[in-house]
């Protein structure tokens, strides 16, 4: 038998990377179409009146949110897991046929579920729970996918050479455990053919919660989906890729540990802020507000730790587009985790709730923090997986500035739109009559909706540039030696 030295095996990481890039472009395209629909309703007929059923806002909205969260981000999270997991545990997937099989099954079952989800959402089949629109057969399939990921996590940990689990691994484990719990409790449901035989289709179901309880469980899930799909795995990435790319040790490893436990402790209680001034008990609303404000501390603990990791090495920000993406991501994380708690304060929420300011908040986090960190992570991994340099540094740098401009246009327009909306909705005359009708707000907001669509389009253009750059990196870029891959990622002009 050939006696080759042991190497990390990135087969599964590559598969998830391809999907992350593809769905990233597709999911954001859906988002851009939606943004233009908000500004110009005729975009609901973008493929003609005959296809309006499939291209209207109601159908595309769930496709956009689900594909960017569960397609783009989750694929990228798994790609980084199958890369970072091996490296910080110092064990190769090639050492276990079983784990390799589980990893491939993880990818292909996930892909099959994704295709069914997209077709189902296009046909309008939905359980109508936000961010959790899937009917029960898909919910069951998601459990299988999640268990396979768990097998990979704990299987690799079981055969590791490095005794201590690096901080990123803690965050991946937190993601795994929390999402498992969230998914099961939020999707507790009874198929209609058991609850009411003969009524509805076999794949429909009825939630086990009703009314306020249903809303409470939904937002406990909804907020923690943000926490454990769009925050913890992204922090896992930042704790690995920023130190690795810059060659700098994490500023304070102890701070990373205490920020981890702080985040775990606080995040799960904050979901109530989605239901302020609703029918849930008042103490629960207050708790949601208080925990949201406290959440600034652990969030900033991680973000400050990232920025201080660059201490004395700030020239790298100018030199490397990857460091630019990561430093900007950490900055947007700080920004977004300050903005969120402000919105969760009751008096601010009275103005902000249901307005476009919330959409702005989601997107400065999702585009600025999550998107930028994912782009940097994929750019760091690709040369190491394919043994080729990044095809074009200037393309990556241009992409950074175009996308940064896109995010800024997005959230500033939504701030103005949201606060204008909130002020107009509550304005009244001396007799208590509302000063404005709904259509008055629409007329005023139109320019900001247009600016938002332009911002989203710029971000999408950046994603297309990224996809092209990555395609060229994988296929035709200059081949590099192992010695060039130590820290800073090699890049062509």
């Amino acid at each position, binding site marked *: 038998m050939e006696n080759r030295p042991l190497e990390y095996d990135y087969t599964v990481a590559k598969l998830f990377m391809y999907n992350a890039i593809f769905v990233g472009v597709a999911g954001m395209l859906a988002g851009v179409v939606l943004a233009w629909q908000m500004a110009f309703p005729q975009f609901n007929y973008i493929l003609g009146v005959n296809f309006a059923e499939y291209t209207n806002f109601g159908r595309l909205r769930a496709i956009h949110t689900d594909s960017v969260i569960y397609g783009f981000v989750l694929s990228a999270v798994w790609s980084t897991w199958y890369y970072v997991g091996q490296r910080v545990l110092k064990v190769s997937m090639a050492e276990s046929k079983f784990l390799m099989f589980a990893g491939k099954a993880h990818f292909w079952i996930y892909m099959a579920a994704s295709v069914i989800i997209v077709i189902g959402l296009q046909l309008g089949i939905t359980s109508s729970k936000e961010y959790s629109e899937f009917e029960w057969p898909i919910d069951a399939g998601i459990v299988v996918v999640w268990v396979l990921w768990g097998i990979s996590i704990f299987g690799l940990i079981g055969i590791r050479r*490095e005794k*201590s689990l690096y901080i990123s691994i803690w965050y991946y484990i937190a993601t795994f455990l929390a999402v498992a719990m969230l998914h099961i409790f939020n999707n507790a449901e009874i198929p209609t053919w058991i609850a009411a035989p003969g009524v509805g289709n076999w794949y429909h179901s009825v939630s086990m919660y009703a009314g306020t309880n249903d809303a409470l469980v939904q937002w406990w899930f909804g907020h923690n989906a943000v926490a454990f799909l769009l925050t913890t795995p992204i922090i896992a990435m930042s704790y690995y890729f920023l130190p690795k790319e810059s060659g700098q040790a994490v500023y304070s*490893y102890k701070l990373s*540990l205490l920020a981890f436990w702080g985040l775990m402790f606080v995040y799960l209680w904050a979901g109530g802020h989605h239901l302020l001034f609703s029918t849930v008990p008042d103490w629960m609303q207050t708790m949601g507000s208080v925990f949201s404000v406290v959440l600034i501390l652990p969030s900033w603990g991680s973000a400050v730790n990232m920025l201080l990791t660059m201490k004395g090495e700030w020239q790298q920000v100018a030199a490397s587009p990857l460091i630019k993406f990561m430093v900007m991501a950490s900055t947007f994380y700080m920004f977004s985790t300050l903005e969120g708690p402000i919105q969760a304060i009751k008096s601010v929420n009275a103005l902000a709730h249901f307005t476009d300011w919330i959409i702005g908040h989601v997107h400065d986090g999702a585009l600025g923090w999550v998107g930028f960190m994912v782009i940097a992570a994929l750019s760091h991994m690709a040369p190491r997986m394919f043994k080729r340099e990044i095809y074009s540094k200037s393309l990556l740098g241009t992409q950074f500035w175009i996308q940064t401009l896109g995010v800024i246009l997005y959230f500033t327009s939504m701030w103005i739109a949201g606060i204008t909306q909130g002020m107009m909705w509550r304005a009244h005359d001396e007799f208590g009559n509302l000063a404005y009708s709904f259509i008055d707000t629409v007329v005023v907001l139109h320019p900001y909706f247009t600016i938002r669509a332009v911002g989203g389009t710029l971000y999408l253009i950046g994603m297309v540039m990224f996809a092209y750059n990555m395609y060229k990196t994988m296929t035709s870029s200059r081949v590099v030696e192992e010695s060039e891959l130590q820290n800073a990622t090699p890049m062509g002009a």
Partner: protein
Amino acid sequence: MDIATLQAYGFFFFTAFMVVILYSYIYHLYSSQKDGSRDYEKYSNIALHDEITDQPVEEILKDDEKK
């Protein structure tokens, strides 16, 4: 006392207990680093030296690999 009041007290004291645990952990992290009994900062090197041929920061010793 009705069940809702009990729940509220239970929640408050549980939260207070968890706060004590969290702060004790933070105290432990910094005091054990200071008195030299643990070095947490060395774990940063797990990411920096992550080639499969690199020496682990803390190796798991497997007896069966020695045979």
